[in-house]
């Protein structure tokens, strides 16, 4: 008997190429076994459920539902209230609106657009620092530090504290990506300590920003007095942690998956080198082809929901396998082909509906700058191992290392 699709998805052996499993899974668009989650793998059904008000994201609802192998283990031990990712309207809407106020339109339409110069500088600095072109790890030297630095600048973390911030981010990231050989107690403690220290650091910074606000996002969040009132310190900490984790873990994978895909598709890499504007369709196609978030767990039905003839009972947990929907041949022609010239590309890579990726515009710009500069500056880049070693995490899927050699690095 073949192992269940659920276990196959979670099985680390399949991390490098989960797509054949998804293809198999799509034969049963709504898959369910035992007391596990209902796994939905086809495009239209996923899209429908992402817009379905009978589906809750509220962590308090989720906690009451049966066994979900991807439920966050440390949910209870975190003293913070749930972030808007784990809330339903109206609380979700209120917190997301307040977080958006200093981040995007209508109140801050130039925040992200205004970061273009800074993004370019960070990318330039990181590529300058690569050092030995004969052998380097794109993850450690580029994809990892890049988004953390961007979030530090966005939140207004003082430059002298950025190194500490990186350390905490790494520890938290490691806890999201458990190494089975490490001692689980040690690992849990490391992440717990990092969360505590980060929380205390941010709490201190928030106090400081309340007294002396700057034009950074944390100052704006700490001092906001809009129609939705202001955030409590706890809400603010929870939100900052969400921005850090969600903005970091996803972008690492988007950039690394991107470079990996381009190295496997040298024609596209060549075209990007010749015309940086191709980065725009390349990033959209990447979000379809190798999405940084493979699936959305932790959603729960508030009512019986019928999907493709299957009744998902009230109170069931759902997995929406975005990466599978993105490869659904009923939606996309030649779905397993990486094709930046694809004209029909409404991918699920950043989700859809009210929980669609908050940082999407920033992630797009980050990936566009990163990939176009890497393409332009790395001379004759080659993969040193294919497939590369992957992170453990089945949800936030991406290479742990991407070892590359090139002939040199252009100015």
């Amino acid at each position, binding site marked *: 008997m073949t192992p269940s699709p659920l276990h196959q998805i979670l099985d680390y052996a399949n991390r490098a190429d989960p797509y054949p499993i998804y293809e198999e899974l799509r034969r049963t668009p709504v898959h369910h076994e035992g007391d596990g989650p209902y796994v939905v793998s086809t495009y239209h059904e996923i899209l429908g459920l992402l817009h379905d008000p009978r589906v809750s994201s509220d962590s308090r609802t989720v906690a009451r539902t049966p066994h979900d192998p991807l439920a966050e283990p440390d949910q209870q031990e975190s003293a913070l209230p749930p972030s808007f990712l784990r809330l339903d309207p109206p609380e979700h809407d209120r917190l997301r609106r307040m977080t958006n106020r200093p981040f*995007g339109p*209508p109140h801050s339409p*130039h925040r992200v*657009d205004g970061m273009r110069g800074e993004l370019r500088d960070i990318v330039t600095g990181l590529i300058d620092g690569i050092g030995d072109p004969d052998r380097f790890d794109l993850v450690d030297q580029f994809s990892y530090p890049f988004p953390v630095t961007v979030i530090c600048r966005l939140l207004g973390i003082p430059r002298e504290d950025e190194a500490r911030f990186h350390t905490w981010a790494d520890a938290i990231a490691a806890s999201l990506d458990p190494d089975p050989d490490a001692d689980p107690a040690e690992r849990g403690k490391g992440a717990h300590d990092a969360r505590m220290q980060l929380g205390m650091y941010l709490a201190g910074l928030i106090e400081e920003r309340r007294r002396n606000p700057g034009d950074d996002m944390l100052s704006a969040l700490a001092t906001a007095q809009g129609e939705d009132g202001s955030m409590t310190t706890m809400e603010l900490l929870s939100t900052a942690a969400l921005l850090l984790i969600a903005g970091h873990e996803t972008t690492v994978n988007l950039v690394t998956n991107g470079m990996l895909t381009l190295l496997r598709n040298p024609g596209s890499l060549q075209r990007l080198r010749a015309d940086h504007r191709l980065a*725009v*369709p390349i990033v959209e196609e990447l979000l379809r082809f190798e999405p940084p978030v493979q699936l959305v767990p932790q959603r729960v039905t508030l009512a019986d929901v019928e999907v493709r003839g299957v009744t998902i009972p009230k109170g069931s947990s759902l997995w929406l396998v975005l990466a599978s929907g993105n490869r659904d041949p009923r939606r996309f022609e030649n779905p397993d082909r990486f094709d930046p010239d694809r004209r029909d590309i409404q991918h699920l890579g950043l989700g*859809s509906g009210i929980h669609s990726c908050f940082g*999407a515009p920033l992630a797009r710009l980050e990936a566009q700058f990163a990939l176009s500069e890497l393409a332009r500056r790395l001379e004759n880049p080659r993969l040193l191992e294919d497939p590369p070693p992957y992170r453990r995490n089945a949800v936030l899927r991406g290479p742990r290392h991407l070892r590359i050699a090139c002939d040199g690095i252009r100015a």
Partner: protein
Amino acid sequence: MPRIAVDLNRCQGYAQCAFLAPEVFALHGDEALLYDPEPDEGQREKLAQAAAACPVQAVLVDAVDSVDSVDSVAAAAGAVSDR
């Protein structure tokens, strides 16, 4: 000059366009979108980013390079071919 229209039936207010090309697209309140239908030539690159980023592909940018030059005065006087 680029020309654009947004199919606001499709639009769900993800505002990617307003983030990426704020001189052309603006949110009015939480969700309502305003845009400049014929923005300046200099916006073309950002427009391409905005249109590509729209999750519901609602931003229509002209696909025709040389739009028929219809001179309305001449047109009023008679037939004008666009070739």
